[in-house]
């Protein structure tokens, strides 16, 4: 393939290496060396991660966790554009300021759909298994060029801005990956089997409604623990869905699967384990309460669990 996901890893690695260098060069940074080391380690994981021995990467990951855990990752200094200059730009550009921002999602969709499966010679243009990610990378680079041209600012300034936002996110940027890693570790260690065993041993599923509730709530709870409905689905459907809802109560498998997965998503809305959706946005919006997004979602998620229970009971 021509545009492989590997290029994006390198691109991300370069951006993070620049962030690291800017942090180390920032004399006013309250945690200059520790923050620099944190972003440096993260950059290495992107630049050469797949070529390092996994044990070394593991040690690096634990080092990053300790740096973050001891408050070693902080925000550096930043010089914003003067108020007047900002207003002048806004007056000159008006709604054209929206163009690069909207270009990212629109170009991502256009590139992903337009170049999907397209080949030049014998190779795919986009990495077929990661088409959307690669499209997002292409869209971000084009949008950056447009943004620099419109604002008459430099790519170096863009890197300073990237560093400002990266540092504002801090360890929250790394957390989704840490949680995904933990999910894999849970699977290896058999956490799923242990949970399914406890649920099926201690709950009496002789009533259809109880069985439906065990499946719906089990999907939600299990997703909350694993941070991801995809990890919960095989365990709960294998433990309760297939043997009991389909086997004993002869439910329709399509209904059971569809509503089961949605019940998992209700769990996703309520757990800090789904950091990409819940904790990162709170950090991006600079909300003081790390759990503010989860709090806004919990009532919708709980109401949907009731609806899912009723729908599954009625439709299956």
């Amino acid at each position: 393939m021509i545009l492989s996901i590997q290029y994006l890893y390198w691109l991300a690695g370069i951006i993070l290496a620049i962030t690291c260098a800017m942090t180390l060069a920032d004399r006013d940074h309250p945690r200059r060396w520790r923050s620099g080391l944190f972003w440096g380690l993260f950059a290495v994981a992107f630049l050469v991660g797949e070529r390092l021995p996994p044990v070394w990467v593991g040690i690096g990951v634990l080092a990053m966790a300790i740096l973050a855990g001891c408050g070693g990752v902080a925000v550096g200094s930043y010089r914003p554009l003067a108020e007047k200059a900002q207003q002048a730009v806004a007056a000159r550009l008006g709604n054209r300021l929206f163009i690069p921002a909207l270009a990212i999602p629109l170009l991502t969709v256009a590139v992903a759909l337009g170049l999907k499966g397209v080949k030049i010679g014998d190779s795919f243009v986009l990495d077929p298994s990661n088409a959307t990610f690669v499209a997002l990378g292409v869209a971000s680079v084009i949008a950056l060029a447009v943004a620099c041209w419109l604002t008459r600012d430099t790519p170096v300034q863009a890197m300073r801005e990237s560093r400002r936002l990266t540092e504002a996110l801090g360890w929250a940027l790394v957390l989704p990956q840490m949680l995904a890693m933990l999910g894999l570790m849970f699977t290896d260690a058999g956490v799923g089997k242990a949970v399914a065993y406890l649920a099926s041993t201690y709950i009496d599923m002789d009533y259809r409604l109880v069985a439906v509730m065990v499946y719906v709530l089990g999907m939600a709870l299990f997703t909350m623990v694993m941070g991801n409905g995809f990890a919960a689905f095989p365990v709960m459907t294998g433990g309760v869905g297939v043997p009991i809802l389909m086997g004993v109560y002869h439910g329709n498998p399509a209904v059971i699967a569809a509503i089961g997965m949605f019940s998992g998503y209700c769990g996703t809305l309520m757990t800090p384990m789904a950091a990409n959706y819940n904790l990162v946005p709170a950090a991006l919006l600079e909300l003081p309460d790390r759990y503010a997004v989860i709090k806004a979602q919990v009532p919708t998620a709980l109401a949907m669990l009731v609806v899912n229970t009723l729908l599954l009971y009625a439709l299956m």
Partner: protein
Amino acid sequence: MNESLNLWPLAGVAVIVLGFILRFNPMLVVAIAAVVTGLAAHFPVETILASIGTGFIKTRTLPLIILLPLAVIGLLERHGLRRHAQHWISRFARATAGRLLIGYLFIRETTAALGLTSLGGHPQMVRPLLAPMAEGAAVSRHGPLPAQVRQRLLAFCAATDNIGLFFGEDIFVAFGAIALMHTFLLGAGIDVDPLHIAVWGIPTAISVFLIHGLRLYRLDNYLARHAEAQQAAGAPA
């Protein structure tokens, strides 16, 4: 049947739950949970370190989608994008934060159901555009917002993006989750048409639009109530 089943790895789950409740640094909590889980499953230390390393490398696409748009968004913010988004929305007299978010929920859910899941997202849509617009609409109607109220409004912006995405994408037939369900059921000896799985998701998708839409509709009342309370108190927070 489960005499050989080891329940000790659940200790990792306990570490996570405790750590998050006591609000320790999540990075550290997750790292400790990973080590505890590995030890409880009797993995040697080297295997634990190696599986932490492999897991971390395998999931590098996750931060990518946040990191890559940051340079563009940051540059535009430097030149006043968020302020412009606030101004732009306040030109529409009928726009309220709740109505804006209901419209966004509808678009996000329907486009995701058509497979267009990248038409949104937190770094590229919520932070630079949706959140400033919702805040702009609320401020032009109710005046400056107290910190607590502002936080709740912004949290609702992020929540609406998530809810629209989750419950939309799962009724798109070519989405990964449908493939996963289909493959798993096939493995259990049950052959279900993926289209049926997608179709049976629709009642839930409609219900979530109604329930979350109602909450967004009530969000406007919440904003109005707090604006009144603040004016009655006579002092801006």
